[in-house]
């Protein structure tokens, strides 16, 4: 359970990367959306304890992450976009690093690597960027930390690998884990999300589960313009709209791109 309380961070004086973010994030796979520079990576860094907030705090299971207590740090893992592992291979990493994470599952790691066609003995220096990323993802999922933060996980992955990642996340993540996926490519894991977080210009404008969201609004695709939508967009010859939940019968699944655009246009949901 992640709790954000008025989380604020500024890289330079006067430029707040994140302002007053507050939310309660339970178990599940969450999508973190935001424009470039909106503060997504900052939020993930703060949640992982890699940065200390200027104001406010981020709590994991009630304890502030910025204190970096070992009991809490062993429950979080952050995998960045272009992160380096200080070891030559996944095998070395497993030997020297995985021991610090009590829920690490070596069998899961072996299965994940196998899916990507790797053994774990390959040297990072000899791998392409995409393959290195795949190995890192396989490892990060196998750590089975309570909180897993992924920054652009599908970056650099070819299409089959993206699909493998999708399956891997479906298979490896259990309901008690919280996974936050920050990405621009919504389509990849679209069917997996339990909740969504949206950052706009440093402000957390939405932090909700999909279920809760769908109780408030509906996403519809119609050939006729909708009656009283909160936000509507015309794509080809269909109207994609977000409307209050009671005003229509059946909602489609959440259209994240539409949701994002609506929130960027300051629509209140």
């Amino acid at each position, binding site marked *: 359970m992640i709790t954000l309380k008025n989380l604020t961070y500024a890289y330079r004086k006067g430029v707040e990367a994140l302002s007053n973010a507050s939310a309660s994030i339970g178990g599940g796979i969450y999508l973190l959306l935001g424009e470039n520079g909106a503060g997504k990576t900052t939020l993930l*860094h703060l949640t*992982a*304890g*890699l*940065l*200390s907030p200027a104001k406010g705090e981020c709590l994991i299971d009630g304890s502030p992450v910025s204190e*970096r*207590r*070992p*009991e*809490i*740090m*062993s429950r*979080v*893992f*952050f995998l*960045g976009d272009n*992160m*380096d*592992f*200080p*070891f*030559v291979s996944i095998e*070395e990493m497993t*030997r*020297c*690093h995985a*021991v*610090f*994470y009590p829920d690490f599952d070596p069998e899961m790691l072996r299965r994940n690597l196998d899916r990507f066609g790797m053994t774990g003995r390959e040297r990072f220096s000899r791998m392409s960027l995409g393959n290195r990323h795949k190995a890192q993802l396989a490892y990060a999922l196998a750590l089975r930390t309570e909180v897993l933060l992924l920054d652009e996980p599908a970056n650099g992955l070819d299409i089959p690998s993206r699909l493998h990642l999708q399956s891997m996340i479906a298979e490896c993540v259990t309901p008690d884990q919280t996974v936050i996926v920050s990405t621009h490519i919504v389509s990849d894991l679209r069917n997996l999300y339990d909740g969504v977080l949206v950052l706009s210009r440093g402000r957390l404008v939405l932090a909700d589960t999909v279920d809760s969201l769908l109780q408030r609004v509906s996403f519809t695709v119609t050939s006729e313009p909708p009656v009283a939508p909160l936000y509507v967009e015309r794509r080809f010859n269909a109207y994609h709209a977000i409307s209050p939940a009671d005003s229509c019968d059946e909602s489609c699944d959440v259209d994240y791109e539409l949701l994002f655009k609506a929130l960027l246009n300051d629509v209140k949901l």
Partner: protein
Amino acid sequence: MRLLNYYMPRLKKQLILYPVISVFLYMLIFFTLRWDGAPFIALIVYNIIYMMLFFGALIFASRNGMEIDTMLPVDWRRKALFLLVYTFIVVPLLVVVPIAACYMLTRQWLVVSPLLKEAYAAVSTLISGRYITCTVIGNMLPMAVCLYCVTSIRHNRIILSVVWTIVTCMIQSFIGGIYGAFIAFRQGFSDGYNGVELSSDEIASRLLNEISLLITPMEIFFAICTIFVIVITCRAIKGRQI
């Protein structure tokens, strides 16, 4: 300890290389003792050894991955203790023990003429001010600075660590040199003033005597600096920001 296991892949190289280099350097001196250029070779070897000590902490910067290091679920005090013990105890041992061992084994073959000994002393003390002012404690300061840079600098870690360590050495030598020269001049003036005529040898030895008595304030100053750097290093380990 798990922490040792964690750092071991990085430290392996140093644990093997340092003793080997130390032995090699000792052999270099040993086999060139009778040469004319022996004192200068010794000076070079001295400096290489000092560099090995000062830059020992660089090994922790040898692999990128500050995020993994920072996220590691280990109490910051343990991390700090590990780094400090390694930098200030293990690294010097890696350098000194092989040399001491070689010395023990080859002592009987060491033939050094008294003239050569004097030449050694003179060359060493005159060329580098650090030998006047620095003892064990003084040498800890560059090591501490290197460790601090390695733990707190984010970009261009290795280059900047090297630069700052060298700057520290230069400042120490500079301070030592000025201090020593100041003391020497004061001595020289007072003796000359009193009309005492001394041979150059006697001047040199009296100089060294007086100066060695005055090392203490210098030592204390460097010790305080070292402690300060160690404290901010611990703070950096505790609150390192990415």
